[in-house]
């Protein structure tokens, strides 16, 4: 059977209840008649031979680039950078696409006699990856060949000795990136493009940048003017990154960009029902649902989290393109849209979304309240092109337990952000002006970021800025099933049930609102007309 495109269901009396995620669990919700439910397109067929496709891409680059073997020579300095643990979600089954690409690149480098090769995890201000995570992303063969010799590194945005100031863009944006990468004869960037936001100039200009550089686009103003940041031409975030990327290229940094796209095959067979349309659930799907949802409901959240973070997605490679950054990225976006695009007619008064247990910043970690806001208002809200799914002044209803729990090792500054900043203000502009600098330069946070596995001190601010567009756009945010105090701390309204939430929403959107539910994951991008 051929792959089915995305689908917008008009809920009627005969429509079964809809699966809704809520953190480390999920349930079935009966949406009001007349509601719409948007389902992602079915997975694009995987490439038959990923290694052959990668090799072909490296030998036939797009844009103004020679084939990779022609760029490799003895005595050269080669740096291979790669996306970090935040992609893809959930982490994919082995072999990870980064492993496949990097192994192919290293084969060519070895053949060309290149000795000076360093691998850099492009963390930006994310936490450092653990050995397990690096081994999963790169494979044991790569890890064991490079890590013991100190040649597998993780970008340190606070290491003055390994940062190079490139210059300023026409808009006055300072560009400072990883020195090893910037001074290499060739910088090969290996990207995983799970959503349209990833890749392009953002890979190097953000992934290898310092706080000094990042603050020029990771701020409330930029994020409010990125409509959305999943739509590159309409994204101020990307405009800034493109200016920086072009400056980096003009400065002589030779980037050979390799971008990959994955299909949205998100869950392994045991959890496959999570990505099926409910009316197509078989007896086995229903049995699995009952078994898994009941077990998760009775399992302590900590244990449930461990189980769910153990899920490995059967994502498969659907395309790989290599060469000059912008030419490569244009092709990548075509593939991303082919997988994720769903045509949607018109906006809605109420947008509902169930938030799962994982977002890019809590892989093998805890989804704290700030990340809950970021996943719902930052990511899911922004998964559109054209117009937001919800009208201006509308309501967003999210399901999540929103427990005030934090991973002290991964998110130390989040704890203080939650206790010190959110108690003062939820206005991104005010917190940017009054609090950001102190968090960003706090020596303790810097120390934890550089030596432990902590996100940078400024990271919770960025997560809040990620919500800036949605916060300015919607009239109210309601969290169903969330910890009431934590939800209120975020400036949202708690609700005990969907009916409760709809009653609260009626104050904003009237008694007979339209409602649209995004059936994420698998992820999709709404092309709203």
């Amino acid at each position, binding site marked *: *059977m051929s792959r089915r495109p995305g689908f917008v*269901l008009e809920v009627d*009396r*005969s429509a079964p209840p809809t699966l809704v995620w809520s953190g480390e669990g999920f349930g079935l919700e009966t949406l009001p008649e007349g509601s719409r439910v948007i389902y992602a397109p079915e997975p694009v067929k995987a490439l038959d031979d990923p290694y052959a496709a990668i090799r072909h891409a490296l030998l036939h680059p797009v844009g103004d680039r020679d084939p990779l073997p022609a760029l490799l020579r003895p005595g050269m300095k080669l740096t291979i950078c790669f996306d970090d643990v935040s992609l893809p979600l959930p982490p994919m089954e082995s072999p990870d696409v980064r492993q496949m690409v990097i192994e192919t690149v290293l084969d060519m480098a070895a053949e060309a006699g290149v000795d000076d090769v360093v691998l850099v995890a492009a963390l930006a201000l994310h936490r450092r990856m653990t050995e397990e995570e690096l081994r999963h992303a790169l494979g044991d063969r790569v890890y064991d060949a490079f890590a013991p010799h100190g040649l597998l590194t993780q970008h340190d945005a606070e290491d003055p000795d390994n940062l190079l100031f490139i210059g300023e863009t026409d808009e006055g944006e300072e560009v400072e990136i990883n020195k090893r990468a910037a001074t290499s004869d060739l910088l090969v960037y290996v990207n995983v493009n799970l959503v349209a936001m990833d890749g392009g100039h953002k890979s190097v200009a953000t992934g290898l940048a310092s706080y000094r550089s990042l603050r020029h686009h990771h701020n409330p103003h930029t994020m409010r003017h990125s409509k959305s940041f999943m739509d590159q031409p309409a994204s101020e975030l990307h405009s800034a990154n493109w200016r920086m990327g072009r400056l980096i290229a003009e400065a002589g940094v030779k980037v050979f960009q390799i971008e990959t796209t994955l299909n949205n095959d998100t869950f392994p067979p045991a959890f496959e029902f999570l990505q099926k349309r409910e*009316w197509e*659930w078989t*007896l086995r799907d*229903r049995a699995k649902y*009952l078994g898994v949802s009941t077990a998760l409901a009775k399992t302590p959240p900590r244990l449930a989290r461990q189980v769910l973070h153990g899920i490995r997605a059967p994502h498969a490679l659907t395309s790989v393109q290599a060469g000059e950054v912008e030419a490569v990225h244009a092709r990548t976006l075509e593939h991303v849209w082919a997988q994720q695009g769903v045509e949607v007619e018109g906006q809605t008064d109420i947008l509902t979304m169930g938030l799962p247990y994982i977002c890019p910043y809590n892989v093998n970690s805890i989804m704290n309240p700030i990340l809950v806001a970021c996943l719902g208002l930052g990511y899911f809200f922004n998964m559109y092109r054209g117009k937001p799914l919800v009208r201006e002044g509308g309501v967003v209803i999210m399901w999540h337990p929103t427990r005030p729990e934090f991973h002290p090792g991964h998110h130390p500054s989040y704890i203080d952000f939650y206790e010190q900043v959110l108690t003062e203000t939820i206005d991104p502009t005010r917190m940017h002006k009054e609090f950001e600098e102190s968090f960003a330069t706090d020596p303790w946070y810097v120390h934890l970021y550089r030596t432990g596995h902590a996100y940078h001190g400024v990271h919770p601010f960025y997560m809040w800025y990620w919500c800036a567009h949605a916060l300015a756009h919607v009239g109210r945010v309601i969290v169903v099933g969330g910890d009431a105090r934590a939800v209120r701390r975020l400036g949202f309204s708690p609700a005990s049930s969907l009916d409760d939430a709809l009653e609260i929403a009626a104050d904003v959107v009237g008694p007979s609102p339209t409602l649209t539910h995004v059936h994420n994951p698998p992820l999709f991008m709404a092309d709203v007309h």
Partner: protein
Amino acid sequence: MAGSRFGAGRLTAAVRAARFPLAAPSWPASVDRPDPERKVGLDYDHEWSRRYPVRLARAVVMDNVARPAARLVAPATVRGLEHLHHVEGPVIFACNHASHIDTPLLLTNLPVEFRHKTVVAAASDYFFDRTWKSIVWSFALAAIPIERSKVNRRSADTAAELIADGWNLVIFPEGGRSPDGWTQPFRGGAAYLARRTGRPVVPVYLHGTRHVLPKSASATDDPAPGGSGTESQRGGRLRRSPIAVLFGPPMRPDPDENAHRFSERVEAAVATLAREVHTDWWQARRAVSAVAPQPGAERAHRGPQASPWRRAWALDEPPARRGAKDWPA
């Protein structure tokens, strides 16, 4: 007893009241139903039913449950077994068809050398339309799905492969149970397979099975317009009644005989066996002999060309009075 019935009733009510996800999901009215992924009907994979553990289990059930039950419910008079003693399998059993009980009664009355190595051609649209039915019939009868409404190459290939593999085949050339008790014209499936595989056809006549398990009105049938409301409700119930199973001599197509002509010969052979039930071997053969033929004898098993009540009237009489006159003239 009352308590258990009450419990069963509550259970049934609970099952009926179950909602998604305990019950199957309803289908949104705005969504077109796709063609179901076919894993039943002709697409059902029945290969498992011929593996040795399954064959062993089936043989145990057949010999220890089905045969005693058949003797109890439908004591059989079996004639013509001597024909089977001299034929080397595999063979194709071509049998008239009046009741769902035909297949188990035929299988349980086959000699042991055939009984456990026989598959049954069953209508794919009836016996294999649901997964559970496919499993039940594949196991119980070693049934294989065939297309009965039209000639289907796949059905024929499957049957031919099994015959080539040494399996005997039971086929009902009428393509379905007789609607009124009279034999329907034979279709060419059995004859075609005989020509294709070179294996003989053994004509079989089953008598009296429609009294054991009468054909019931289909649940989907609309009530007959103008019905009196006194239509029989006894269809589909098992009743004890004696039966007769008659095997004819194995038949092979002549070298220049096509499947159609051969099929007519097979049908005539079954008709002769039918006459034998009420007369004897000699009279049955004399009726269609070239020396003293009786007019229309070769088609007598199809009943008179008359109104439904006259056809019903002309059928064999109830078991109590059976034998009072020749059948079916």
